[in-house]
């Protein structure tokens, strides 16, 4: 909850299942377990927030991301804790102090706090090191017994009846439990006691099972009130995107694909894909693209829940060339393209290409590539001065007077008739005759007496004339 609203940090806060009911019990935070009405009477300044399972899940994922930024071998231990296999991380973090500092810093960057930590030769010892006292203990292998022996058995969360029996026997610490015979314990208290004794020695009962890396990253926000304007929605989205990009940065990743999933006030879901020019972690650009999409197609009702989903991609890297001019960094270029898409709209930025088709006007948009492979050869070939065509999209319908199918006069605008002084053509172009979109055209290049060189065609099915482009 504090991740979404960091301004609540340090203030009395109560998390309830439904804050509209005065009888709701406080689930977490200030005066936990009390009725909400009672807590509000005791603390008039109490801030109340509804429990958001989405926010909890996002926080868990963020915690996992931070752990994975240290080592790829991470296991979910409990909903609010993770276990890390630090084997092989000595080169990156030579000291435990440095490791803990890095963890604290990274947790802070995603809006979390390091509550407790512990380091030990096994997961059980590390877990106990985190739980004992204020946590933060580092237990080297040679001092395991010294650390474990004085710890109370209750720290292992044993079954209540076993704990009571052991207490009656005068066994209160892990050291005392370890000194008991395992077979005798099993005979009297069952297998649970044997397992407890093994854990008291610092052994792990189940093997380490590292979780696979995330294939997508999510951040969710449950709004207290339905959001009915884009300005507020943008504000909420920015915090969610900030958290999302912080998590991706920790892992050295960028947003390759982005989805926005909204739950509306009327309960209906609304999902949309946000087109990106390339992988980026720039919150400003991502927010601009989302804003553009929302402005173009606003939600049908006020928004109650927001979920931002990102498919990660590797940020582009480039090797500078000794013989070629330096280019902007790939991340900078990607951000620029994303900003341009936000400014101009999706489908308006890229590398224009000729479509694989029969129509002369057909074009397609491909991904822009910063450096041509040909440029690497660095052959100084001066480009040619070639004829250019300024295309008219869509082709402009014109009235043409023709003799024997050849244009002689063109009415470019109403009342503005131009005489054709020279012409070339026709050349016929037809295609897609196997489809309903079939076409057949006679193309001409014409020079008008008033100036101007045009390409025009006659559609042979409708016998109408179109101006296709201006030579320049």
């Amino acid at each position, binding site marked *: 909850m504090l991740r979404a609203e960091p301004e609540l940090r340090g203030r009395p806060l109560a998390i309830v299942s439904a804050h509209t009911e005065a009888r709701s019990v406080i689930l977490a935070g200030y005066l936990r377990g009390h009725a909400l009405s009672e807590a509000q009477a005791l603390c008039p300044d109490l801030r109340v927030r509804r429990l958001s399972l989405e926010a909890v899940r996002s926080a868990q994922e963020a915690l996992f991301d931070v752990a994975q930024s240290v080592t790829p071998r991470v296991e979910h231990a409990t909903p609010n804790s993770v276990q890390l296999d630090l084997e092989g991380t000595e080169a990156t973090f030579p000291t435990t102090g440095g490791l803990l500092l890095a963890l604290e810093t990274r947790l802070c960057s995603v809006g979390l706090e390091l509550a407790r930590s512990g380091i030990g030769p096994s997961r059980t010892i590390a877990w106990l090191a985190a739980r004992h006292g204020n946590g933060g203990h580092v237990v080297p292998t040679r001092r395991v017994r010294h650390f474990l022996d004085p710890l109370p058995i209750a720290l292992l969360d044993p079954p209540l009846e076993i704990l009571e029996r052991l207490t009656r026997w005068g066994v209160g610490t892990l050291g005392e439990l370890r000194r008991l015979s395992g077979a005798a314990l099993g005979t009297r208290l069952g297998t649970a006691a044997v397992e407890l004794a093994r854990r008291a020695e610092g052994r792990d009962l189940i093997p380490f099972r590292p979780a696979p890396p995330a294939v997508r990253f999510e951040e969710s926000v449950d709004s207290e009130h339905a959001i009915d304007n884009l300005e507020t929605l943008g504000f909420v989205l920015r915090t969610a995107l900030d958290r999302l990009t912080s998590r991706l940065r920790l892992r050295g990743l960028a947003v390759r694909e982005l989805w926005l999933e909204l739950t509306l006030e009327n309960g209906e879901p609304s999902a949309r894909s946000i087109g990106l020019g390339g992988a980026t972690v720039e919150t400003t650009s991502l927010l601009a693209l989302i804003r553009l999409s929302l402005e173009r197609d606003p939600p049908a009702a006020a928004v109650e829940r927001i979920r931002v989903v990102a498919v990660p991609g590797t940020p582009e890297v480039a090797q500078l060339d000794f013989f070629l001019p330096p280019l902007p960094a790939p991340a900078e270029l990607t951000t*620029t393209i994303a900003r341009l898409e936000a*400014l101009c709209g999706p489908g308006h930025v890229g590398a224009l290409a000729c479509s694989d088709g029969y129509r002369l006007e057909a074009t397609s948009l491909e991904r822009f590539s910063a450096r041509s492979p040909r440029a690497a050869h660095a052959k100084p070939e001066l480009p040619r001065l070639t004829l250019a065509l300024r295309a008219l*999209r869509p082709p402009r319908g014109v009235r043409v007077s023709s003799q024997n199918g050849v244009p002689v006069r063109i009415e470019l605008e109403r009342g503005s008739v131009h005489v054709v002084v020279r*012409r070339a053509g026709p050349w016929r172009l037809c295609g897609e005759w196997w489809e309903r979109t079939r076409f057949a055209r006679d193309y001409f290049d014409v020079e008008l007496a008033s100036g101007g060189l045009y390409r025009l065609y006659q559609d042979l099915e409708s016998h109408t004339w179109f101006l296709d482009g201006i*030579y320049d």
Partner: protein
Amino acid sequence: MSDDRREELRRILQQSGLSGRVLVGSAAPAPEVLPRSSSRLVPTLDERLGIGRIPSRGQLIELVGDASSGRTALAYRMAAGTVAGGALAAWVDLPNALDPRFLRRTGIDLRSLLWVHPPGLQAALKAADLLARTGFATVVLDLDGAAPGALAKLGATPWTRLLRSARENRASVVLLASERCVGSAAGLALYTERRQARFEAGLFEGFDACASVLRDRARAGTADRHALHVLHRRE
């Protein structure tokens, strides 16, 4: 180093594609290396436009003229020259008039030219500014489709801002329009006009045009004319 040896070295560098990056000269201030001999008093059009691996100078270039006068062909050549030199080029296409089939005939790799189609004039200016600041060496800003009078209403502010971005990043912003609108912010202004169309053997083969230098801040007092032969190169 004698003049002959220097010329020989320049020729070798030009053949090996290094003429834009290696300066030939003494420890004195390095002369600008041009693809052709710069001994003539009147520079060629390529020298003026910076075509042929000359580092960008950070300026606004205006290419103005009527339809079918060759200004777009010149812009094609500038963009293609930039990409061939390994730098970045972009085309801000307000009228959505860029034809990739014709552009490809300059020899350019289309994947290396960033095409941007802005929704309006202000967005076009913003896009050009952003591209210049990012590090694009040549940004062609085609404003031929702007509403009549819209360019005149802009005033000097957007052009000054664009010039500053171009100067700071050594980019060339090439403005394509039917009439001059940049004013004193333009480092180079060319006016193109068509002379004669070439129709040969029933085919349209291109046209001859003329580019007049209206303003050249770097070479003041060298207003001159250059002949253009814009030819239709079929694939």
